[in-house]
């Protein structure tokens, strides 16, 4: 009862004080704000381009053209009120004298030579309208000579639908990866955003010398579990704070921003893969939380702990560089080793599970290894915290830890 009371007290204190920190909200809201900024720029840019095209349509530009290629249709020139001139020099002279706004020279071989455009200076951002007219002339002239279907091919507007089969069943690799792959994305974000916080959660009491009062007031096990549970809750809060604005932006503004349309109703939801992904995610998160908490407890200062944190991150995210290997050679000893060695296994296991080349037996073995490792590391982190906490100036050695265990 007392331990439960203290666990609740530790969690409330840890969660409340973190939620009061501006840095928590800056970190949580920084990503959505950045996304809003980027999409805002894209949105503004799209609108500006459309406005410019509209303006160009209504603008009256006097033009002269020399078409040596013979591609440009006379009716197009007529529609655009462009006058033909015999030579390139004559056209340039007309621009220089101010007789026309622009002159376009279409060379004999459009494939190898350049179309030359000359115009009155209209400002840095407006000068591109002349080349846009040249491109429009070519586009419309060619389109006028081909059928609707050929036009679609030339414009790259032909839609291709690929259907693949695995074991005789229809299988869409990318869609299949979405649901179980979310665990990989979530894991990456949580460690990236929360790693330092986990590391510092046990150093703080040592650095500010609160530890002696705490350890004579609350059980070290209760304190550590309280801190870990608080971190998990804070991580969930932060995930929601990141996801809600991102999803809102996606669903509300995707038509305006021309974002790829994902039909959520058609995303395959394989319960086995999702279950395995969730189990890998949970035990991986617990394992790395335990490792970071233990590191924090073993080191005298945050500075020393952060250099060790670097090694953990390399082990954890290093396998990301082998993505193609995990997909193409799932049976190789290297891939199997990385998938089962607990410090490197989260990324390979989650990736292979999402892609669908992780056999059930290997998945269960990997999860079991992760689960056992997580429990061992958690117990170890409590022990390290218990004995390392009193070492204000030096890190606790493995020999010292073994000696204390032997008693």
């Amino acid at each position: 009862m007392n331990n439960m009371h203290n666990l609740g007290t530790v969690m409330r204190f840890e969660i409340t004080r973190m939620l009061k920190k501006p840095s928590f909200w800056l970190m949580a809201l920084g990503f959505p704000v950045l996304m809003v900024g980027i999409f805002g720029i894209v949105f503004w840019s799209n609108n500006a381009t459309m406005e410019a095209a509209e303006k160009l349509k209504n603008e009256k530009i006097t033009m002269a053209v020399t078409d040596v290629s013979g591609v440009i249709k006379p009716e197009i020139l007529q529609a655009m009120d462009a006058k033909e001139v015999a030579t390139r020099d004559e056209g340039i002279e007309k621009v220089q004298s101010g007789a026309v706004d622009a002159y376009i020279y279409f060379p004999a071989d459009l494939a190898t030579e350049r179309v030359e455009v000359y115009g009155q200076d209209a400002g840095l951002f407006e000068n591109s309208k002349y080349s846009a007219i040249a491109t429009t002339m070519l586009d419309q002239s060619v389109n006028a000579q081909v059928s609707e279907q050929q036009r679609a091919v030339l414009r790259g507007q032909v839609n291709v639908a690929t259907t693949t089969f695995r074991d005789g069943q229809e299988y869409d690799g990318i869609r299949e990866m979405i649901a179980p792959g979310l665990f990989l994305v979530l894991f990456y974000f949580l460690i990236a955003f929360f790693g330092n916080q986990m590391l510092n959660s046990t150093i703080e009491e040592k650095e500010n010398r609160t530890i002696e009062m705490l350890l004579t007031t609350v059980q070290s096990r209760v304190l550590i579990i309280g801190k870990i549970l608080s971190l998990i809750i804070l991580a969930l809060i932060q995930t929601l704070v990141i996801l809600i604005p991102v999803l809102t932006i996606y669903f509300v503004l995707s038509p305006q921003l021309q974002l790829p349309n994902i039909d959520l109703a058609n995303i395959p939801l394989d319960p086995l893969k999702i279950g395995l992904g969730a189990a890998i995610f949970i035990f991986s998160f617990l394992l790395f939380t335990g490792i970071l908490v233990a590191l924090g407890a073993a080191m005298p200062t945050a500075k020393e702990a952060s250099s060790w944190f670097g090694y953990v991150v390399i082990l954890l995210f290093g396998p990301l560089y082998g993505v193609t290997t995990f997909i193409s050679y799932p049976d190789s000893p290297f891939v199997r080793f990385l998938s089962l060695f607990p410090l490197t296994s989260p990324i390979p296991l989650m990736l292979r599970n999402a892609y669908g080349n992780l056999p059930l037996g290997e998945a269960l073995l990997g999860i079991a290894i992760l689960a056992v490792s997580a429990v061992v590391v958690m117990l170890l982190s409590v022990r390290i915290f218990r004995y390392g906490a009193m070492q204000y100036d030096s890190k606790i050695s493995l020999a010292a830890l073994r000696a204390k265990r032997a008693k």
Partner: protein
Amino acid sequence: MTGEKPIVSVEHFKMAFGDKEVISDLSFEVFRGEVFGFLGSNGSGKTTTLRALLGLYEPTGGKLLINGKPYTVDGGISLGYLPEERGLYKKEKVLDVMLYFGELKGMTRPAAREFSLKYLERVKLSDKAHTRIDKLSGGQQQKVQLGVTIMNEPELLILDEPTKGFDPVNRRLLMNIVEERKKAGATIVFVTHQMEEVERLCSRVILLKDGAARAYGTLADIKKQFSGASMDDIFVKIYGGEEQEAEDE
């Protein structure tokens, strides 16, 4: 005190850090309701003994018991411990930290709040209740830490150099609080270098030197043993040699 059951019992305590022996063989007892002085020069092993007594260090040998058993948080005794290495959550507000420790010590939140506000008023820090700890002066932080130490009205109060860094006014305030706890029946073990505090408050003392008890008993017994007029004289008599040795070196 023969026959009375001690609240603190240390029997043949030994402590070594690697090859370095800090406590060779230490035994003493503290009885319920007394103020016990734990004296010694710097590095004599006082803090190490207190930490081992509270389970923060594992002893190399011997037994350290509180109420007849090794100390655990759930051991059924209300403890107040003011360590030598002091500090609180620097970025948190005074009242939040006091409430946190109050609740950890088993108080309800309203009771912890009531105690904290009364205590802060008493030590003239009521206007700092919502100030961050790191915005307080060193002396003010010490007062808050003392408040945290006594907020569950502990039956055993262990104070490791409680007046270190205090000005005379605050030292007097602290001593008054210790005396109040004594009157309330609490047992107090405190480490100090201030011999006037020892004379004023302690019924019995132990003087540590080189990891062993150099003197142990009531003030009257010790004064008789060392033919000293005051504890100050006795302290100089026992530890003065160390100063001489240091000067010789």
